């Protein structure tokens, strides 16, 4: 029973990690919505900007979760 309980994501993953992972995945999903393909900002489609933000957001969210958890 102990093993079975240990192997379920919600019961084992830390809350901070789950939040950071959810933010990253949610941003990824929203980035690929059709609405962001046509509009442009500075000559680049919003999809491109969303990806650029995600490239910084994902590691920062992970680091906050990891270092916050350690404290």
């Amino acid at each position, binding site marked *: *029973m*102990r*093993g*079975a*309980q*240990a*192997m*379920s*994501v919600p019961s*084992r*993953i*830390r809350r901070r*990690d789950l939040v*950071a*992972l959810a933010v*990253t*995945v949610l941003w*990824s999903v929203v980035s*690929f919505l*059709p609405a962001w*393909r*046509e509009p*442009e900002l*500075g*000559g*680049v*489609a919003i*999809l*491109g900007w969303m*990806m*650029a933000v*995600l*490239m*910084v957001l*994902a*590691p*920062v*969210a*992970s*680091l906050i*979760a*990891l*270092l916050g958890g*350690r404290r």
Partner: protein
Amino acid sequence: MLVERVLVGLYLAGCITIGIIASRRALSSRDEYWVAGRRVGTAVNAMALMASLASGGSIIGVMGLAYAQGIPATLALFTGSVVGFSIAAFLVAGQLRRFGKYTITDFLTFRYPHPIVAYLVPIFIVVAFLIYIVAQLKAAGITAVVLLGIPYETALVLACVVFIAYVSIGGMTAITWTDVVQGTLMLVIVVGAAVFVVLREGSPATLLVQATSSYPELGQVTQHPVSMYLGNFIIWATAIPVIPHIVMRVLSAKDPVAAKLSLNLAMLAFGVLILTAVFTLVPLGKTMFPGLTDPDQVFLNIMAELFPPVVRGAAVAAVLAAVMSTTDALLLACSSAIAHDILGVVVGRMSSRGQSAVRIGSAWGIGVVAMFLALSPPDLITEFYTAGVGLLSASLFVPTVFGLWWSKANLTGGIAALVVGAAIYVVVLLGVVPIGYAPIVVALPASAIAMMVGGILGAAETEAMLNRVGALHGGA
């Protein structure tokens, strides 16, 4: 081109020297050779991880891809890698580090003990990584042609001999040391070149507006069906947690926390590298060299046009560093798939000297095959090796993540997920069944469904196995 050649010669000699120094330690045991004795600290591992991922594809290829297919398509592909690091840090890094073996095959054969898994996984790794290595070698070859003025074939042989030599004798220890040097060189050259360009030509915003005004396709989502953008993103997001050369870096970390932290720091450095290249150097390259027949040469043309010989020499060394830092890790992972995963039982019975000979021999074998394949290189290296990595993602991601986190994951489900994911990926990639979606978009869900069906219909996993897997989660 004397200055450039001398600088590159010094760099290659330095790599060989590191390999020789590391060989004393590396050839002493399996732990030292495959995972550097499991004592690599956070900062060193982070830079080595970044260098392992930031390949020729990330310097030559990222700019070539953005030049040819636009910024959104390029960022979709490379941001997938960054998200993959996040997934790896949260879902597999700590657990695999606690597992404490050598390769991803070790984990999968522990979780799903069956000959199909034991042989199919290393075969997939060898196939996918051969493609990956060939793409890297093309980057080294064209760099030498453009900036050193030496023939493609000569550059190929030279680069191959050097990196095979230091990998085969120095193992993970040599790779770690060279990767730190190579990663630093890459960051300095790309970011330094971008700063120089900004000071000389104007801000990134100015460069971007200039380029997209004349070439609007640079910023548009027009080049591919959007499913291809999504497909490339998913391939890298799901490949990073299971791709063997990254997993071996996780296994070489000194502890689970260092493994997670180094993944996060590596992705920050990787993000800086990619964003700097895409938003500064690519717009300038598009404006300065609008009609390149080989888009992968845009960075090299910028360096040749704007910088003096010393910087060009350093740039060649940086591209070679990018190529070699990834290729050496790929070669070690590929070599481990043969010498450790497939021949492990036989090799285990050999003397220490015999084991070393097999490790060195398998590295040379793979390297030489890749070198011959690279004599006829593919177009657009990033797309080429992404297709190869997709095979690993489609076949290994679901068995690994479900195997760690789903209590119903069992032998039937693991084998089904592995085989179905790989088969569907290859069938769709080759166009046998034209469905209009990127192969990974179909293969990954199919792999997950196969796992769930197998998990529900197959024999339940033993309590002992569940407890052993549960123990890998430690304090999570």
